[in-house]
């Protein structure tokens, strides 16, 4: 029995009214302007895309179990890897962390009631739905075999559903732009006056940097795809060499967006990791301003390196050299982050709960993904490695080992906040282990065979690569099972999990000052601005089974509430 019913209502488990049961009709979900519900709908959407594209991945990995062809024709194989790539990149990874988790967490981290433009937010979600719908239309009508990059001139000539797919990607681009605009404006204008830039949680810094990229890079993709559509329908001769057009121009345009897009994928992931490492080390984040600025630095440098995707395209030697040099410089802010995370853990009181396990595996996998990027940025080496499985392994280490791992870590971290229920931590960790092991088994052999000359996107291969391909295929199924388990544990928790209070992990950023799940207006009280990384200010409240910021507790500490001893960290 709680001695303080008011506090229990504000900070505890919200068994009464909360955002989940504020309206019960389907319409109240589909037309909601609440950022939390939009975030949950996005989460359902991107997860569906993840499983769909994951199935394509497993199909093509199964086909590659033998080198001589098993159950797919070459044409079908081309379609499988194209659909896997296009759906994963445009429908899943790019919106995953910002639109699903960011939507839920960002306004709450600011102590705000909503994002700046709630209707634009809903519009962005429906654009995502329509865009994905177009991609799926391409899939079921005539499929798509251009690779997710839509390179000309093949994308002008092939008679597969390029128009649907480019239209879908065009629409998804606007969805991404609107999310970015919304977040940037929200962080600028909805911050409480006392929360200065350097008092923001680092997740917000990374979302801010992401928003800059979404706003500045995505329009270029939009016009590129529009020109490609015009090229396919009217043959305007801008990309089509048959009419004097320049197909390499398409590559320049495409990568001017798609390289920064890589940072749209990884920056929010880094932001999540910054939160997780600090909370589960129960220690103030090390080098706050360095981590913050490194996000912005990565965002800006990301605009200057697109040419490293085109080292073999025949662009000029001088340009190639410059792109290579700038590519190396991206490693600096990335390494700054990694070192600061490690320094944060040093002498922290580390809790190896599921989110922390994901954070640790992120650091390991992103480390490999990042460092192998340096090999690819080296001109002479890249000539050898270009378009081999080495590249495939590299970007999967960044996108899956980085972004997907961070997404799962973030979900496990904020899940009790989103649904007020705790998951089974043991099974969560088992899932994390399976994801980690399966992932490495899938993609580590690909480095080896790539370096030995196995080209990417080939449906058939020589016997010397068979052992690597078979390891990779087995690993892919382990990874798939791990991801299924990870999501299964979370979904089970929504219905059967133990009820938890507002702040079960002792995190100090503002979103944890609400009840779990939060009410429709997020906070039923005035939030107390505090240092998001000052965990010593958090006090365990035995009555309502949650951590509370000490300013909410009366100065004379009543029985049953005692500060947590801080001597152990």
């Amino acid at each position, binding site marked *: 029995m709680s001695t303080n019913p008011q506090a229990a209502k504000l900070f505890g488990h919200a068994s009464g009214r909360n955002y989940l049961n504020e309206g019960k009709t389907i319409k109240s979900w589909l037309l909601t302007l609440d950022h939390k519900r939009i975030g949950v709908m996005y989460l359902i959407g991107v997860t569906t895309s993840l499983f769909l594209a994951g199935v394509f991945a497993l199909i093509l990995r199964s086909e590659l179990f033998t080198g001589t062809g098993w159950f797919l024709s070459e044409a079908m194989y081309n379609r499988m890897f194209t659909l896997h790539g296009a759906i994963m990149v445009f429908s899943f990874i790019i919106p995953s962390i910002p639109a699903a988790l960011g939507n839920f967490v960002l306004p709450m981290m600011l102590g705000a009631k909503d994002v700046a433009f709630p209707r634009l937010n809903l519009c962005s979600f429906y654009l995502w739905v329509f865009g994905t719908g177009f991609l799926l239309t391409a899939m079921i009508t005539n499929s798509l075999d251009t690779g997710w990059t839509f390179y000309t001139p093949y994308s002008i000539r092939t008679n597969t559903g390029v128009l649907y797919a480019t239209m879908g990607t065009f629409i998804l681009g606007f969805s991404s732009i609107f999310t970015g*605009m919304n977040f940037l*404006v929200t962080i600028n204008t909805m911050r409480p006056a006392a929360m200065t830039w350097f008092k923001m949680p680092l997740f917000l810094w990374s979302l801010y940097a992401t928003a800059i990229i979404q706003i500045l890079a995505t329009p270029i993709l939009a016009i590129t795809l529009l*020109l490609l559509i015009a090229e396919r329908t009217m043959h305007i001769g801008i990309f089509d060499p048959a009419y004097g057009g320049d197909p390499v121009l398409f590559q320049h*345009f495409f990568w001017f967006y798609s390289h920064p897009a890589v940072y749209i994928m990884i920056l929010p992931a880094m932001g999540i990791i910054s939160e997780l490492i600090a909370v589960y080390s129960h220690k103030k984040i090390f080098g706050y301003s360095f981590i913050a600025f490194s996000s912005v630095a990565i965002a800006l440098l990301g605009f200057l390196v697109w040419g490293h995707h085109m080292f073999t395209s025949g662009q000029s030697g001088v340009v190639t050299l410059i792109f290579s040099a700038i590519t190396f410089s991206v490693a600096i802010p990335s390494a700054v982050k990694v070192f600061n995370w490690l320094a944060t853990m040093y002498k922290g009181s580390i809790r190896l709960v599921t989110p922390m396990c994901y954070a640790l595996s992120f650091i390991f996998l992103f480390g490999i993904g990042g460092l192998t990027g340096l090999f690819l940025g080296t001109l002479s080496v890249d000539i050898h490695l270009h378009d081999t499985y080495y590249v495939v392994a590299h970007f999967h280490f960044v996108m899956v080992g980085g972004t997907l791992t961070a997404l799962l870590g973030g979900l496990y971290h904020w899940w009790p906040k989103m649904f007020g229920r705790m998951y089974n931590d043991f099974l969560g960790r088992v899932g994390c282990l399976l994801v980690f092991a399966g992932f490495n088994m899938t993609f580590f052999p690909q480095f080896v065979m790539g370096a030995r000359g196995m080209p990417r996107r080939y449906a058939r291969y020589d016997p010397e690569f068979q052992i690597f391909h078979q390891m990779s295929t087995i690993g892919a199924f382990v990874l798939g099972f791990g991801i299924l388990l990870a999501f299964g544990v979370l979904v089970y928790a929504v219905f059967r999990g133990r009820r938890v209070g507002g702040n079960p992990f002792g995190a100090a950023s503002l979103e944890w000052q609400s009840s779990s799940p939060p009410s429709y207006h997020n906070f*039923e009280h005035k939030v107390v601005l505090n240092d998001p990384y000052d965990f010593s200010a958090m006090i365990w409240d035995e009555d309502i089974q949650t951590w509370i910021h000490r300013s909410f507790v009366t100065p004379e500490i009543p029985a049953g509430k005692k500060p947590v001893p801080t001597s152990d960290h």
Partner: protein
Amino acid sequence: MTAADLTAATDDHHDEHHHGPFIAHHFDTPMQQFDSGKLGIWLFLTTEILFFSGLFCAYTLYRYHHPEIFVDASEFLDKILGGANTIVLLFSSLTMAWAVRAAQLGQNKLAGRLILVTMVCAALFLGIKAVEYSHKWDLNIWVISKYNFNADFVPPAPEGAVARALGISQWLVNLSIIPAILFSGFLIGGFVYRGMGNKVVSSFFFGLAIMMSGYFLGAIAGQMYQNSIHEHHDAAHTAAHIPLDHGPAQAADAVTRPQAIGIFFSIYYCMTGLHAIHVMAGMAFLSWLYYRSLRLHWRPDYFGPVDYVGLYWHVVDLIWIYLFPLLYLIK
């Protein structure tokens, strides 16, 4: 903080919004809402500029590779019509800026009228643009793959009865079908709502009809101009059509020489077409503003939407200010 304090905090949370009818629930002050919108629209305009930047990039690249094509091809564009459109858009920017000021002062009637003038200018622009397009299509000047102009080509007499009766291009008749449907629909809507006694909505529909009449004004004036210079103009074309056998043309084997000039028109149609789509979107936004002006929504602490759409309209204008010299005034 005690439980009592927390209760107090909870209570005053609920009565902090008495700032007027248009403040969204999640903003604290009208100023915060205005600033958010303003930053948002500037970011959106940034994306718009970047959206066009791909086309400017293509323009630069192909002009660098084929300067002679651009010089020759720009002769096909009519400086008078382009210049008239520039003046129309500049004037509409003036009325738009004035409308923002009127809304800021809460002068809804004046704001509404100025917005209506801006809408008419937008439609006028499209009318003149339609004349330009249809004249080129008459001459078989298309994007590069369908480009089939030849200097001796005599444009056929208009085929349809309507076009023949009016002495105008068949293409212009085709382009004007949708504006004509819209015009009559708006007119009918205006009369229906007037019959129902709904003054605001009927004025709105009549306003839209006036806007669409701007299109016909532009189309008719443009076509009259086009007819008056017809003879003279064709002679100019013949003179301008220098055989394109100089300068390095890429992929020369694949490209038949006279057709290479089509790359200019590919870029011309992409740039002006995308711009025209933005003008149409602007007309939709302006119509929304016009409706809200009729509903007397603007007040000194709430005029954001006029300001935001105004900025958008200025950017659309600005893009044309760049397109005009880049495409029409090369020589």
